């Protein structure tokens, strides 16, 4: 007989990676190409169906429609995945072989681990399971997460920051200049943006007084009248923006995709990788996006709760209706994650890439002072017990306005990299009479 939590954990462990994460990654790439094409006024992939070029086979089976229908291009993701297995697996002779093979695994392991504490379906009263009179699973109150650790959000942060090892090892082992440049850029960027990320989580912990992801969501999903809190985004609007920016940077997404800036570094840290080894880097990036969005939803969007301020769904559900509620919670959660992912893609195809000095300046001279100020102000508010959601909200807005007011008066660096006006352009001061 196994305990209820272990049973549910095993189901989630098997279902989420193979039922949600991997198909989602494949179709996120498809979605990204579609969004790119909408942003650029193209049609995008719409030809590849599920025939996989086996025209004669389908004809012999009497399923000729497989050849003719394109299924709106939905075969693209599957075909790409299968194709990658059949590509040449190239290992450069000058590379450090052990590290070169280790790096893609090191990228994909933290990416597959990070989501473990995400409370996908809240808490449910499991009735127990018995087959033929023998009780196999005992009854109990369980959390629908792979691993409901009490250090939840710290775990996500810890595992998430391991991703940098895969990137930097892959870059170093390739023994290639573009990879190397991409690798040190990636390290500097991920390391810099981890500090504001960690500070945001710290302030969220200070606000919710817990590190358990499930308890945080429960707190946000309770109504105000029964002592719950508002969604994190209403308590800390400034932090929500900073946190989202940091997630983009941690995932190496545009506008922070300098480590793989294709116009400067060919492919960045994965220039020398091919076939499934390259695909593991790509999978890692998309899984980090999913985990990051889920993390954002836990901290700031109330996890599975449908609407803010009113406790809509019950915290604990039991019986057969409990299963329905769990599925409902799961779909609300996934809906929020999907929305955030689409916003990420929208940002990628809308904003131009940062320059490296701008990137570092944004992290160290913008986000870190702002988050430290919010931390000190929040600590003060908690000490005075003014910790209602609108006090935190006002404090955030005050820090944002204060930062915006102070920014023009900060000391400026040397005059390199300033805009140089092109002589004769409309930004150039008008030339004196007679010279024009």
């Amino acid at each position, binding site marked *: 007989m196994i*305990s*209820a*939590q*272990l049973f549910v*954990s*095993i189901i989630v*462990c098997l279902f989420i*990676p193979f039922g949600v994460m991997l198909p989602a990654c494949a179709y996120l790439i498809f979605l990204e190409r579609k969004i790119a094409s909408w942003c650029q006024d193209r049609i995008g992939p719409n030809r590849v169906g599920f025939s996989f070029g086996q025209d004669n086979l389908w004809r012999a089976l009497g399923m000729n429609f497989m050849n003719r229908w394109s299924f709106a291009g939905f075969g693209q993701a599957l075909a790409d995945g299968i194709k990658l*297995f*059949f*590509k*040449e*697996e190239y290992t*450069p002779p000058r590379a450090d072989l052990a590290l070169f*093979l280790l790096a*893609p*695994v090191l990228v*994909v*392991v933290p990416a*597959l681990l990070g989501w473990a504490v995400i409370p996908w379906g809240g*808490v449910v009263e499991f009735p127990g399971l018995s087959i033929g009179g023998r009780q196999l699973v005992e009854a*109990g*109150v*369980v959390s629908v997460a*792979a*691993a409901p*650790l009490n250090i939840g959000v710290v775990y996500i942060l810890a595992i998430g920051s391991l991703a940098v090892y895969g990137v930097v090892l892959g870059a170093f082992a390739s*023994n*290639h*200049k573009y990879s190397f440049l991409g690798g*040190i850029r990636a*390290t500097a960027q991920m*390391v*810099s943006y*981890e500090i504001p990320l*960690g500070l945001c989580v*710290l302030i969220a*912990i*200070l606000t919710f*007084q*817990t*590190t358990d992801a499930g308890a945080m969501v*429960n707190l946000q999903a309770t109504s105000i009248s029964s002592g719950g809190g508002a969604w994190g985004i209403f308590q800390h609007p400034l932090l929500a923006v900073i946190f989202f920016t940091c997630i983009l940077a941690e995932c190496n997404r545009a506008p922070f995709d300098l480590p793989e800036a294709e116009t400067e570094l060919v492919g960045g840290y994965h*220039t020398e990788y091919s*076939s*499934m*080894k390259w*695909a*593991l880097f790509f999978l890692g990036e998309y899984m980090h996006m999913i985990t990051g969005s889920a993390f954002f939803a836990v901290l700031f969007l109330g996890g599975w709760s449908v609407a803010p301020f009113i406790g809509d769904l019950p*915290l*604990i559900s039991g019986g057969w209706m409990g299963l329905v509620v769990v599925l409902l919670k799961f779909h609300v959660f996934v809906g929020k994650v999907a929305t955030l992912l689409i916003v990420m893609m929208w940002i990628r195809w809308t904003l131009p890439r940062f320059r490296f000095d701008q990137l570092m*300046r944004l992290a*160290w001279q913008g986000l*870190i002072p702002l988050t430290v100020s919010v931390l*000190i102000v929040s600590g*003060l508010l*908690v000490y005075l*017990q003014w910790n209602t959601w609108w006090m935190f909200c006002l404090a955030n807005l005050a820090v944002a306005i204060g930062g915006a007011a102070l920014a023009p008066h900060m000391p400026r660096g*040397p005059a390199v*990299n300033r805009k140089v006006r092109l002589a004769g352009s409309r930004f150039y001061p008008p030339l004196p009479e007679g010279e024009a």
Partner: protein
Amino acid sequence: MLTLADSQFSAYAAVGLLVLMAAGFGIFNLIASTLIGPRRRGKVKEMVYESGMNPVGDARRRFNVRFYVVAMTFLLFDVEIVFLYPWAVNFASLGPPEGDQLSLMFLLRMGFFVLTSVVAFVYAWGKGVFRYD
């Protein structure tokens, strides 16, 4: 309010299961693509790709010291943040504010702890650690 039926052990067991699954997935992909894909070698193919130029030197070379300094500053801040997590969990439940010495003391200690890092941060800023131009 909410009591989970089980001890923490099964939760970490699930993490262990996930580690095995993730590592297995990665290694499976490495082996599968090695077995299935074709393999051809050649002198020019094995050359370092540098946008068509003949490669000059090796990639194992010295790089700008700024990256090292940024990594050190990161360590300073990251360790500080890790030490602040237990404080953040417990601070709000330390007691009522009026005349409570414990709460005030912990606020001031946190403030001093953050201040030490802020001093280092301002020094690094003044030294131009965060300037990349």
